[in-house]
């Protein structure tokens, strides 16, 4: 069970990193995520079914996610639509697109396809105990994504993205077009979400248009748990680590809810309510924490 929680937390952790970029770094509440997650899953499944190599399929999924994010950013930038609404627009359109990608079906299984996960399992079976293969694999994947992101946000471009989320006027004053930055940032964020969706499809063994429902809430809850658990810091390495840790904690709670919820007569459909309540509780706790420690002075 414990490895299941970690695997799930790490798969969705990549999505949480994407949500963290849009919500926390860019200050751009991006709801495209609900559409780009199943988009990644759908692209992965269709590419695998057409006989494509799993890793190439992953790239296709990433590109699809980036494109979805770019569309949201363009709607927001050029039609002066509020960012929330721009995300909802893209998300809604993606629902139809995802069904198209899946060949006019809402659910497509890939149980007999040579997914990345199956290849990895075959390769390492006997070397690592079977039940830990996926855990190790996703640990590596999540860490690679995390380290790449850390490196990116230490480049000049990454720093400027961070500055824009904090103070857009400053970025404009530096002669940088904030619209370009938003397009890059939201694109990157949704690319990660799509990768997460692609892995989720392989793990679950199917792609479903409903996969993304409420995923933004899960992502946000994970980000908030991570922030709540860890020390406050402005180091990007710590922040991305918090996002991953938050994701594992959140999916642990959900796992427990799914498997032992019946004890208190909870059904799987109650989980969305639990997620929402969890976010509200976290908000209240964060507020209380802020009141207690008004200002922390660094040495």
């Amino acid at each position: 069970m414990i490895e299941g929680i970690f695997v799930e937390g790490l798969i969705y952790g990549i999505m949480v990193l994407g949500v963290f970029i849009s919500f926390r770094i860019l200050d751009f509440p991006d709801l495209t995520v609900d559409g780009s997650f199943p988009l990644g899953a759908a692209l992965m499944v269709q590419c695998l079914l057409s006989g494509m190599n799993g890793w190439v399929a992953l790239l296709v999924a990433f590109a699809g996610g980036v494109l979805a994010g770019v569309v949201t950013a363009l709607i927001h930038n050029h039609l002066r639509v509020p960012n929330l609404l721009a995300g909802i627009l893209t998300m809604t359109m993606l629902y139809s697109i995802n069904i198209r990608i899946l060949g006019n079906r809402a659910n497509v299984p890939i149980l007999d396809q040579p997914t990345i996960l199956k290849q990895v399992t075959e390769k390492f079976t006997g070397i690592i105990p079977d039940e830990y293969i996926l855990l190790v694999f996703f640990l590596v994947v999540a860490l690679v994504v995390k380290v790449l992101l850390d490196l990116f946000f230490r480049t000049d471009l990454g720093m400027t993205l961070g500055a824009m989320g904090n103070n857009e006027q400053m970025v404009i004053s530096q002669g940088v077009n904030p619209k370009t930055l938003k397009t890059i940032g939201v694109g990157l964020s949704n690319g990660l979400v799509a990768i997460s969706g692609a892995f989720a499809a392989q793990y679950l063994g199917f792609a479903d248009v409903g996969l993304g429902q409420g995923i933004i809430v899960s992502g946000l809850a994970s980000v908030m748990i991570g922030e709540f658990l860890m020390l406050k810091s402005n180091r990007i390495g710590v922040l991305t680590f918090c996002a991953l840790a938050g994701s594992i904690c959140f999916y642990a709670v959900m796992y427990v809810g799914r498997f032992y919820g019946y004890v208190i007569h909870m059904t799987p459909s109650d989980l969305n309510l639990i997620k929402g309540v969890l976010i509200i509780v976290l908000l209240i706790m964060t507020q209380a924490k802020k009141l207690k420690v008004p200002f922390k002075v660094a040495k």
Partner: protein
Amino acid sequence: MIELKNVSIVFGQGTVNENKALNNINLKVKEGDFITIIGSNGAGKSTLFNTIAGTYLPSEGQIFANDKNVTRDPEYKRAKYIGRIFQNPLLGTAGNMSLEDNMTITHKKGMKWLRRSLNNKTREIFRQELVQLRMGLEHRMKENLVMFSGGQRQALTLLMMVLSKPSLILLDEHTAALDPKNAEIVLELTNKFISEYKLTGMMITHNMTHAIEFGNRLLMMDGGEIIFDIEGEAKKALTVEKLIQKFHQLRHKTFENDRTLLAED
């Protein structure tokens, strides 16, 4: 340098609230000029800056920068050669980032790509530049700017702007939100940088003494127009009394209704 030809700005055109914030402004800023601008609230001083910087596009007229027509250029494009400091000391820097990160972003204008220009060499350059501020900030390069005071952040914004070598700097009452001591420090630094780096600048102030003391040229604005433009020796001979008299003579009204304008120190 910068030239405005018949520039007008009208807010809410065609509505009952139509408001002509700038009325047919003609202004030529020469290289090396340091212009102080005075005028009561609503005179159009900030609108003038917003128009030059590109925040507002003019309803009529044209703007030239180095003989190039930039009337339709958005703010971020003009920012490559125009440096600007706002009254709010928090607008020039990113508070949740460290001092060295802020300097990395600001030391060069224009779009940033995947290079990593923060290394020990640039750190050393930044440190040496920070010494000029004499605030001890060179020892606090890894701290978040949230920890810094408004005066420190404004001084820092000033330094970072100067380092990017803009052809024109716009100072919009950049000391007004600071306490008197910090305001004085920042103003001193401004004067020092402008003469040291031979900058072309414009400064809005509500303090007539400063307006007379600093710069080689003075503009007085009222009702969206430049009503008085004086430079060189004639400006040096100005006193606060003469300025008030001049305003009275030009507009047949008194400054009394705007007490901030009468500040003399």
